[in-house]
Structures are given as C-alpha cells and as structure tokens.
C-alpha cells in the first residue's frame, strides 16, 4: 500500500514528488528523487539523515534558495493552499518574507560582521518581507517614528530569546558575541516578522553541548508561544527526539521512513534508521557500533533500486532492481523497504540489535565521536 495522502493532518506545507537535479560537467546529478513530506499546522517535523543525503537541498528548494541552473527543481510544493513553484519570484518573495522564516545552520557566519546586531535586526523587523520597498520609501520609513517602534520590537524579541543585556547587544557587532548569543540573535531575527512556518537548519549544532541544550529548550518554548509550525533539519537524532513531533528519515535523496518521534525511536523499521539508532554513542553497554559501513551514494550514477541497498546487510537482488514502495505501517508511519511488504512474515524483519550485529563495532565504555 502506498502513502498517497500527505502524512500530516491539516497540512500547512506539503511537498510532493520533489525532484532536484544539478547539472554538472559530468552529467545530471539526481540528488533529490521523489520526496514527499508534509508539515501540519502547529507541528514540529524533523528531517534526519547523515550529511550529504539531501536535507539541505530539500530545504533550499522549498525556500527557492537554489540557483537554477545549475539546479533543476520539479514537483509540487504547496504552502497553505498556494502552489509555490508556479509563483513568480516576486509573489514568492512576499509569501516567504511574510509567512516563512529560517534559522541558518552556522550562527558564526549568518550574521553580517560589519553591522551592529541592532542595525541588522531592526532592518529585518522593519523591511523583512517587504522586498518591494523602493529606495525613496526605504529612506522615508527608515527615518520616521516607525524605526523606533521596530527597534522596540527587536528589543522585546531579544528579551524573549533570553539574550543577556539586550540594550547593549543592540550596539554590539557579531564578533563581540559568543556562539550562544549569536544563535539567540539569529532566532530572534527569524521570529521578528511572526512567521507561520519556521525552517531551522541544524540549529545549535555548531555550539557546545550545554548551550545546544539551552537553545533547544528555548526553541521548544518559542514554538509553543508563537504557535509555530517547524521544519527542522538535523543529522543528530538526539535533536529530533528532543524537539519534534514527527520524524522523516532521509537517505540518498529519498525519504526512507517516517513515523511519530516515539514510534520511530522505539520501533525503527528501515535498516538505515536502525543503523542510525544503533550508532548513537552510549556511555554504557558492552559494544558500540561505530557507524554504518560504506558511504552515501554517488548521485551522478545512483544505485538503480533502493539507494541504500549497497550498504544494507539484508539487501537482496530485488532491492537492486527497483525502488521499493512506501509501505504504510500504522498511523503517520511509513517505510520504504521491501522487508515491510505484507507478504514478508514479521519474523523476517530485522531488529535494531540484529542490525547492530552486522555493523563494525568496538568495545564499549568509550565515548564515541559525534
């Protein structure tokens, strides 16, 4: 059985059959190959997967941040009833600026180093989403009372993201701020125009663990207070578990599994998901998997069938021939793997432990890498 309907109830954003290719001298690299995903109103959804599996490309194609060409984007992206890909740049800018916002991956490089925090954030508060503003109108509004109101709004938002000493921060340059403070400033900037949908790319990953935790807690509060729908992108399953309602696991430019967060962690189905969970570093236990053997597929010449097949311990000839269907395995739960065909007896489906036993391991009681 195929998942034809969007998984989310009351979806704000749906992505259907998204395909993104990149033209290169060696041919067309088919990076995103038929991605379906949806985010319900008020839902926090994570796309998880290892680096290079297409998470950021998916995000960038939703936000129209890819240069076309070399990129080629096909499919259907619907935001609150509006088909985004058919909009003109100008119409899209309006929808994006007013209703969507994003928090970029690296807080160190996402603030402009030559302007004060106050200058950047106040411009965003005043002109963000008004990309039609002309030069004359800009200067008229810039030097009117509206500027002070915008400044107040920025200060209020900085307080809300628990920025220490916001008055002072307004006059500081990004280099004078710590990583955590920059991340807070970026979150504040993203929320200034009261978006409905927030897209967060690897939020907090560049920070150390304790600050990372604080930022995620802050984010949870903000999601609740501002009634946000969120699309998170992360390679860190821990983040997915901490914040999100539902998780999409992405591999090689395809969604291989989706499930509500609890279900995904308690009962992972796809061998890839199982491998990811098996390789989360643990402080206890005898043995720890170091990771899934092999590496992500070559997009110029991807495996013809299941893209995970070359690394999958359970792969059969069937896997290498055709792309498996997405099998529905419960509410909001689907997995793209032949092992979950109804014809396959449940006993033949692998468990996390079984997958772990197929992976390279090293003795436990070590703190592994990432």
């Amino acid at each position, binding site marked *: 059985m195929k998942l034809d309907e969007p998984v989310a109830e009351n979806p704000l954003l749906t992505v259907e059959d998204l395909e993104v290719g990149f033209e290169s001298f060696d041919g067309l690299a088919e990076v995103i190959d038929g991605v379906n995903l949806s985010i319900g109103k008020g839902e926090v959804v994570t796309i998880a997967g290892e680096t290079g599996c297409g998470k950021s490309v998916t995000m960038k194609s939703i936000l129209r941040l890819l240069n076309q060409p070399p990129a080629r984007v096909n499919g259907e992206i619907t935001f609150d009833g509006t088909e985004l890909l058919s909009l003109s740049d100008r119409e899209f800018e309006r929808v*994006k600026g007013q209703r969507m916002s994003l928090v970029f991956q*690296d807080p160190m490089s996402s*603030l402009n*180093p*030559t302007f004060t925090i106050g200058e950047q954030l106040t411009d965003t508060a005043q*002109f*963000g989403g008004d990309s039609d503003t002309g030069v004359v109108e800009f200067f008229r509004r810039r030097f009117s009372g509206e500027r002070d109101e915008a400044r107040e709004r920025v200060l209020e938002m900085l307080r809300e993201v628990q920025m220490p000493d916001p008055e002072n921060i307004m006059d500081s*340059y990004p*280099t004078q701020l710590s990583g955590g403070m920059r991340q807070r400033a970026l979150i504040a900037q993203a929320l200034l*125009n009261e978006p409905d949908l927030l897209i967060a790319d690897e939020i907090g990953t560049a920070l150390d663990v304790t600050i990372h935790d604080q930022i995620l807690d802050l984010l949870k509060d903000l999601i609740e207070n501002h009634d946000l729908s969120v699309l998170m992108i992360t390679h860190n399953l821990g983040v997915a578990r901490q914040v999100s309602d539902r998780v999409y696991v992405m591999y090689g430019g395809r969604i291989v599994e989706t499930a509500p967060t609890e279900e995904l962690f308690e009962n992972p189905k796809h061998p890839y998901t199982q491998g990811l969970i098996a390789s989360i570093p643990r402080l206890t236990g005898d043995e720890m998997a170091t990771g899934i053997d092999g590496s992500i597929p070559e997009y110029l010449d991807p495996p013809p069938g299941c893209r995970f097949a070359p690394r999958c311990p359970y792969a059969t000839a069937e896997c290498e021939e055709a792309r498996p269907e997405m099998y529905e395995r419960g509410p909001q739960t689907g997995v793209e793997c032949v092992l979950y065909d109804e014809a396959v007896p449940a006993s033949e489906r692998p468990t996390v432990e079984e997958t772990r036993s197929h992976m390279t391991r090293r003795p436990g009681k070590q703190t592994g890498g990432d």
Partner: protein
Amino acid sequence: MKYWQYLVRRLAGILVSLIGLSIIIFTTSRVLPGNPARMALGALASEEQVQALAAEMGLNEPIPIQYLDYMRGLLVGDLGTSLETKRAVSTDIVYYLPATLELITVSMFLTIVIGIPLGVIAAQNKDGFADNATRLVAFFSVSVPGFFIAIMFQLIFGYLLEWLPITGRLGSEFGSGVSRFTGFLLVDTLLSGNLAAHVDAWAHIILPALALSLAGIGQVMRITRSSMIDVKDQDYVEAERGFGLPSWLVTYKYTLKNAFIPTLTILGLLYASLLGNAFLIELVYSWPGLASYGVTAVLNNDFNAVVGVTMTIGVAFVSINFLVDVLLGRVDPRIRLAMEEAT
C-alpha cells in the same frame, strides 16, 4: 589597546619612515656627481664664484652636518632655495602641488564613482554581457599605458572632435578673472564667482584626469567584482535575502560594505601610483603640476627641489595610507575590535 592608540602608534611609525626617507633622499641628492653650485651659476661663472656659492650653500660641510642643517630648516618650513627657479623650494611646492593634487583628486573621484558601480554591476551579472564587457574594458585600461591613452584622448576629443581643450588648466581668457585662494582651480573659480571659468576648469581637467584614472578604474572594477561575488555567497547575505529584505538593500548596503574592504586597500595603493603616473600625464597635457616640476629638478640636479618634492610625495603617500587605515577601522569593526582585544 584602543583603536586610536593603535593609530597613534601608526603615526609614530610613519614619522620614523619619513625620517628614513629624508636621510636616503638627502644623501642620494648630495653624493650624485655634478656640482650644484656650478649648475646654479652656469658655465661662464669663475671658479672663485662657484667656490663662494658652494661655501654659502654649506656644500663643503660633511653630509651629516648638511643633513642636520637641512632638518633644522625643515622644522620651520625652509626647504632651501631652488637652483632653477631661484625661489624658495617651499614656495614652489605650494605653487605647484595644488595642480597635481587637484588632478589626482579628480582621478580618484572618477575611479571610485566609475569603478565601484561597474564592479557591482559586473558581479550582479556574473558571466553575463555586462560582466564580459567590463572585463574587456578593464583589460584594455590596465594594459594600455596611460600616456598613450592621454595622447589618444587629445587626438579624439581635442583635435578631431574639438570638444575639449588639450593643454593647461584654464583658458587664457580667464587668467585675470580668477584670483588664487587655494591653488585648486575648481575651488578658486567658484570662490571668485566666475562660473564660466569653473566650467572651463572642468573642461581642462576631465581629459587628463580620465586618462590618469583609467588603469585604476580597471583595477577597482575587478576587485569590487570579485569581492562582491565572494560576499554574495556568504551565509549572512543568503540569510538577509531569506528574510525578504529588498534586494537592492541587500546588495548596496549589506553586501557592498563588506566587499568594499579590499577595494579600500587597493585605493590607498592606487593613490601612490597615481602620484607616479601623474608625471607623464602632466607632460602630455602641459599641466603645471608638481610632477613636471620635480622631473625638471632631477634633470637639472636641482638638489633642494628634488628632496623637497620627494618628501612632499612621501608625506602625501603615508597620509593617504594612514587615512585608509582609519577608514578600514570604521568600515570593518573586526579590524578595530581585533586590535582592541589583542592586548
């Protein structure tokens, strides 16, 4: 350390390098073959007269003593007497410097207002028509020598089209109507209330200034283009665009300010090369400036004038680079802050 403290330290360093420059140029001018006293008096003067003048000019003293005497004079603005013009070198410099400064300032202005916008446009249309067209112009302007362009301009705009005058700073008909206030004709004509002369001064300066600035325009254009392209790919620019700010604001405020940092450094260096290139341009356009005065001095072994001109150019050069440092600190807070955090 505060940034101004750093700048004070820079100033002290500048002073040291100027003293070094003065020692080198003074010594060189004194040890060169040829007797300045003989040059001054001419071939017909008797040996006694030459000896007497040499003694009067202190040429018989050891060079370090001569140097100290010179420096003592320098402190009160006395640069000695020119053997050629028989006037105080300081008077000559005050007379000739404004013409050169005016030429260079207008060239600098043209370099900035033409080079930077063209660089931005080229970056916006990377590999498009505008980019390729400006690239071609840049290659041409950098590789063709300035004096050749100067002569071509004279031929085309002066001789063939007869649009613009080709020599001097001002038409002779305005000579009496403009009094000298600053030596900058563009300013003096206005202060004299003579608008026709002001327009004429522009007509005279535009060709030499353009010929002088072309190479710089090419460089500034290319530097601005490549740093704009670099900055455009930065996360913060992508983020600013992502927040739906007007794209012209992202380009001209948030991208150009960062891209301007390397351009500013280049502008400081360009200023020095303009001082050097100005000589040929002044020659071609019979522009009564410091460069042609200095070259005449060198050819005639007019040693006081040589030292005076060299020192003036040295001061101008270090002042501009000091100004660039001040501006860099203003444009790029990272430079200022790094300095303040360093100690």
